[in-house]
């Protein structure tokens, strides 16, 4: 019988496939092994002669960034320094790039000379001693060029300059003027007014929410905490960190939003997903609490609603205040393993501080500027996009940028913190459950993790 042949081979598939299985798993796990680069002493300052020599020596640099068409700004650099050839690589946007970068750094090969790193990720990469301190390459001289809080973000605990600010995301509120007008609501100036408006609007039209607090967007949440004056993370030394994720301020903010969510007048849809885009286009959300990069992003993502949006500062925690936080924005950092530190540092410096290059970033890639000069430039500030009914949105956000607290810090283990946030406070929002308990759980999870990673934790 033919059938009998099958029986002989009965054991084979399982053995082979089991191996395949185990090996696939192993591949997932074998991202790293060796420890990062050694700390070592701070590099000596480069003299002008060193810099001149390095910039005239034929050099190839690799630059990882996800800014579209940044080749244009890089070309300006190459025009000024013809000996330097920069290879631009898009290794993914945000997390995918960091994952690849981390893998390359662990492998000890394949990492770029310079890379785009968001503000909140700087401590995550500086704790592993993967970033180059830019002070020896003249970074301190540029301090006054950049908006104060952005310089605070790139400055390390011992005064190191880890990167140059590239673009920023001071937070404001984009709202649908047509929807608010229809229901006789004036744009709220305080969070109390905002809560009343949320209730009124949802009562008037149950399909509309004043805003959406994305239960997966720890970044935006941190911006709101930033505005409220919370200091959830503080690096108190090279091996110690202060965690205050469940302090009074955090609980106040969480309680406020948790309350509105429980009442059902604020939605909790995950953002940057298909349903969320649809929601923006179809008027499910009457406002988006977003960053300075939001206006341009929305113009491309909610075309159907052109002309209906306006921009305003975030509502405040007290009448007459004007404070904001930041969400997103990037820097250019130099990786410590680079063989051409001078050229890489100058690349990072040039594209983010050269007037022509920064203007190009603001007008071609629509990045929200980090330099004071450009924010004050009428050609930038006085733009009147049709999408916002001719409002000078850049000016609004430029003014907001000056109100961002300069002292906010990020933890050296951001991925873990954000992942824990999703599974505690984010989950509490989505499930309409107790936000206080969620924050306590978050504090305890992050503390446990920090301790397991060898940090001394204070709270």
């Amino acid at each position, binding site marked *: 019988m033919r059938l009998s042949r099958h029986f002989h081979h009965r054991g084979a*598939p399982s053995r082979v496939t089991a191996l395949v299985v185990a090996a696939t798993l*192993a591949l997932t796990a074998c991202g790293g092994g060796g420890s990062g680069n050694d700390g070592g002493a701070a590099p000596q300052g480069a003299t002008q002669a060193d810099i001149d020599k390095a910039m005239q020596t034929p050099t190839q640099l690799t630059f990882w960034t996800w800014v579209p068409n940044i080749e244009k700004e890089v070309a300006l650099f190459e025009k000024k320094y013809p000996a330097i050839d920069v290879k631009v690589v898009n290794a993914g946007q945000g997390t995918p790039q960091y994952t690849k970068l*981390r893998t390359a750094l662990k492998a000890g090969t394949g990492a770029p000379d310079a890379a785009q790193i968001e503000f909140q990720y700087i401590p995550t990469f500086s704790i592993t001693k993967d970033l180059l301190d830019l002070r020896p390459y003249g970074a301190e001289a540029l301090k006054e060029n950049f908006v104060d809080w952005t310089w605070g973000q790139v400055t390390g605990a011992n005064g190191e300059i880890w990167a140059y600010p590239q673009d920023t995301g001071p937070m404001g509120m984009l709202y649908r003027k047509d929807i608010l007008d229809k229901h006789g609501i004036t744009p709220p100036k305080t969070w109390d007014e905002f809560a009343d408006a949320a209730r009124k609007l949802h009562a008037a039209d149950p399909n509309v929410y004043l805003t959406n607090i994305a239960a997966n967007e720890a970044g935006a949440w941190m911006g709101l905490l930033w505005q409220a004056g919370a200091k959830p993370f503080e690096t108190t030394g090279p091996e110690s960190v202060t965690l205050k994720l469940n302090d009074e301020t955090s609980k106040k903010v969480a309680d406020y939003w948790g309350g509105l969510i429980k009442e059902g007048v604020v939605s909790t849809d995950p953002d940057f997903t298909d349903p969320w885009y649809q929601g923006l286009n179809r008027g499910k959300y009457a406002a988006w609490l977003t960053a300075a990069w939001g206006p341009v992003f929305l113009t491309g993502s909610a075309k159907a609603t052109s002309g209906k949006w306006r921009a305003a500062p975030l509502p405040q925690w007290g009448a007459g205040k004007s404070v904001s936080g930041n969400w997103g924005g990037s820097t250019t950092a130099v990786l410590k393993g680079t063989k051409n530190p001078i050229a890489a540092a100058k690349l990072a410096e040039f594209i983010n501080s050269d007037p022509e290059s920064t203007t190009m970033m603001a007008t071609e890639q629509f990045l929200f500027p980090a330099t004071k000069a450009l924010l004050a430039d009428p050609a930038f500030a006085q733009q009147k996009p049709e999408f916002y009914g001719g409002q000078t949105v850049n000016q609004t956000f430029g003014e907001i940028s000056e109100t961002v607290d300069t002292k906010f810090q990020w933890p*050296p283990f951001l991925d873990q913190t954000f992942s824990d946030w999703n599974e505690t406070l984010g989950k509490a929002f989505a499930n309409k459950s107790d936000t206080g308990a969620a924050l306590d759980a978050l504090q305890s999870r992050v503390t446990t*993790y920090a301790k*397991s990673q060898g*940090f001394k934790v204070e709270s």
Partner: protein
Amino acid sequence: MNTSTTIHTAPPTVAAHRRAKGKRQRHANRGYLFVTPFLIVFLAMLVLPLIYAAYLSLFREQLIGGTVFAGLDNYTRAFADERLRSGVARVALFFVIQVPIMLAVALCAALAIDSGLLRLSKVFRLGIFVPYAVPAVVATLMWGYLYGPDFGPFAQVAEKLGTDPPRFLSADWMLGSLANIVTWEFTGYNMIILYAALRAVPHDLYEAAAVDGAGSWRTAWSIKIPALRPALLLCLIFSVIGSFQLFTEPKLLQPVAPNVIDSAYTPNLYAYSLAFTSQEVNYSAAVSFLLGVVIVVASYTVLFATGRRSRS
């Protein structure tokens, strides 16, 4: 040459014997030559990473303090890890519910096509197989859209009917929603395996059955299904592995249901998150190894349970 001299000097019988032996030897050597490319890839891409992962799992690396030898600490931690255990329990439940449904549907489809009673059987066969040809990434993104609670088509229909939209992405429904995607993807694949096995059943059996007066139902039940037992077993083993390794679908649905699918929703997702979110590569390697062991045990359990019966 050595062989030619032997032929001349040795008695014919011995010579013939040696010649045969030499030929066999050369045949055997040539065999190794043919499997060398496979062996190289197998060693470089499978065995070495496995050994490396095993090695990694014995260490512990901290952001502060560097790497230290940890012995079996990572494994004892994994055994006590509530999140890992609940993940394994979840995929086990997934296996118990999803696999029988998928294999039953695949079996029915294979029998229907094989029966020859189906009009447009080629179209049907292709249609049921096409989802397998769609990359899992695309499939999951598509289903993620279909499941959408506000603007997905099901939600739209529900709204038109004035009922609450089905909550496909809620915590209670999620496992079922994933099972649906996996079933949709892999029914065609299993169907093809079963159909191929059916085509291998000798025709004289059918003729004998027909002579004995068996109708098509009776033939299916008494001849085709027993003949399919080895193929079904193969499908089952693949499914054990697929279920316990569940990763792509939950990973891709995570953005639309971030608070339902957490970082430890399935063991593989947990291993991934440990390595790439928590930077705990060593512990992740230990978790992966334990999962590998679980899969081997589960596969052998299935083989053992079904093997006993089919031999008798």
